[in-house]
């Protein structure tokens, strides 16, 4: 399902941590759609030579859709999307965004919610928390950050959450004992992780070791596509051949040629854009396909994955 994008105005920009800027969007006309905790939007950045479209979690209270707020961490090794947001976007600018979609909703029947955030991964939880408080849910938030770079929203979290908040500043050598944290949870607890891949990998590994059911472990990784080698892609049905530039994702190249694929996350998570591969080897970079599916080399997630060599032929 391709997205219907609409315009919003940047109403405010605030530096909420040394490397993180918060952007507040207001509607240009009408009102913004309501959204649910854990929702994200796609933000289109009118960069040259081609626009970027990145997914960002909405971090405001879901019961208040007068504004949308997102937080963007400057990524040193990005293709330029976060840099564009930090350096080009000004208050009063108009940007195009998608309607909210949700791939990271709380599991409401859980007996307890254990939230583990790393750095800018705090953002989706900021939309969980007001709803947890209203619904009197049992929860704990464990927030791991480096205060020299990240660690946004600590003060307001302290005020709002009290005992439910646990802070770990690795710039001050504070560590979270994830094994002990998971080991002391009682059955019926659901754990949610948002942060760097290493944090997600560690928590999911520990949870598995400790015998947690997989259905009780939830995580979100929104990493925008990373650059790679240029390659060419042949579309079997239309006969077109496209060039994919090093800084461009395969999905963006297809969209640039007028081929719309369904997509929600543009980060290798949701599985919507999966496409059949007829020729060529794939460098899989997604978190959606299983190891077995990846080894078959017969499909690709064009939002993040690329050709291993110089050529791919797709069933499009």
């Amino acid at each position: 399902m391709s997205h219907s994008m609409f315009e919003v105005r940047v109403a405010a920009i605030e530096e909420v941590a040394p490397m993180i800027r918060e952007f507040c969007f207001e509607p240009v006309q009408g009102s913004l759609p309501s959204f649910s905790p854990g929702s994200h939007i796609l933000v289109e950045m009118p960069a040259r030579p081609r626009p970027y479209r990145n997914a960002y979690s909405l971090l405001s209270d879901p019961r208040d859709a007068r504004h949308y707020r997102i937080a963007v961490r400057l990524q040193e090794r990005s293709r330029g999307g976060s840099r564009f947001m930090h350096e080009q976007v000004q208050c009063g600018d108009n940007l195009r965004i998608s309607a909210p979609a949700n791939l990271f909703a709380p599991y409401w029947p859980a007996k307890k919610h254990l939230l583990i955030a790393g750095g800018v991964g705090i953002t989706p939880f900021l939309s969980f928390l007001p709803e947890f408080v209203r619904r009197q849910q049992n929860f704990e938030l464990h927030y791991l950050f480096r205060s020299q770079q990240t660690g946004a929203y600590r003060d307001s979290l302290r005020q709002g959450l009290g005992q439910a908040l646990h802070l770990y500043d690795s710039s001050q050598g504070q560590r979270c004992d994830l094994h002990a944290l998971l080991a002391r949870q009682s059955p019926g607890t659901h754990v949610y992780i948002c942060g760097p891949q290493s944090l997600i990998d560690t928590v999911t590994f520990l949870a598995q070791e400790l015998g947690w059911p997989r259905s009780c472990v939830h995580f979100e990784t929104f990493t925008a596509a990373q650059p790679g080698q240029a390659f060419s892609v042949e579309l079997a049905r239309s006969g077109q051949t496209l060039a994919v530039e090093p800084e461009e994702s395969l999905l963006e190249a297809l969209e640039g040629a007028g081929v719309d694929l369904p997509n929600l996350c543009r980060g290798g998570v949701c599985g919507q854009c999966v496409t059949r591969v007829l020729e060529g080897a794939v460098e899989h970079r997604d978190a959606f396909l299983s190891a077995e599916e990846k080894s078959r080399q017969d499909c690709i997630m064009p939002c993040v994955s690329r050709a291993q060599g110089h050529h791919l032929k797709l069933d499009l």
Partner: protein
Amino acid sequence: MRIAPKAIQTFRDDFTYSNSPGAIARFPFPFPEDEYRYSVNIEPHLTPGPEGSVYEHLFDIDEHYLSEMAERNLVLQENPKRCLAMPHMDLACWDMIERVMVAFATDYPEYFALTREGNHWIWENKLLNQRDEFTFGDSSTLPLPPMEYIGRQVQGDFALLDQREGDLFMDAGIVTCPADWSLAFDAGMSFSEWHGPVPLAHEMGVFDRALKYLVAIPVGRPVRRLNWTLTINARMDTSPETYPAWGMDRASVTPDNVGEKVYLRVELQVLDRMPRSNALMFSIRTYLISMQDLVTRPDWAKRLHRVMKTLPPELVEYKGLSRFHPTLVQWLAQFDPAN
């Protein structure tokens, strides 16, 4: 020219239900081809659709509104468990209230009015002579639990599907006119679980493809499909709970009474993302037409004959048509020049 709600008719006992010529003209005939095949026949529910058609608005109100609300009341009196909502679905119920009320007040201003001042809402349903003031989101300010409150004012069955783990769960609904399925039985089940009894389609991967599509439906982009079966008499409530009251009817079809006894039952199913809860609203709007009304359209009569004649035996069995299917095919043959 739109058709207006008419006086109450019955879907049981004396079966006074009838379709006006206008209702027949707008009946959603579901067969695009001579042979019925399974497909994921989902398309965007773009509104407004053609004026006067069942696709014009998000929710279709027709001449049977009062009759269906009266029938729903009878079913709920007999068995209150035909409406349920698990505690975590409260917000989803309020999403549905908003969607229905805003759509009704916009699309049918002659029948419904909604005034909103912040969370203070005033709702008027002129067809049911109802006026309520309540606080949006606060279920204690409604005269009934939110699902039952809104469900008693809108035609068709409703399920609210909670979305988690990339799957959908039947965690709330009001189902008083089902084609032989039970909300109480399916409650809490996942998408593939509640479709468990459907033959052939699992092997074809239909449900995997459909689920992937459904979980990605964004806010404000509803989709629809048609489903169908056959029902004996104009009975809305063909549920497992009431099976003793209607199961035997299937043995009552004779070559002489097919026209009045057998009804084509079409469901207009709409799936619509709820913004605050991320639930998926699944509405099932049921239309009934008797064979004698249906064959007033020669193209429909001919098409239905061919569809019935070529229907795979598994589907004849699954849809519960075995007892009267040969009689029906024979009766329909008279309308098909190829025979």
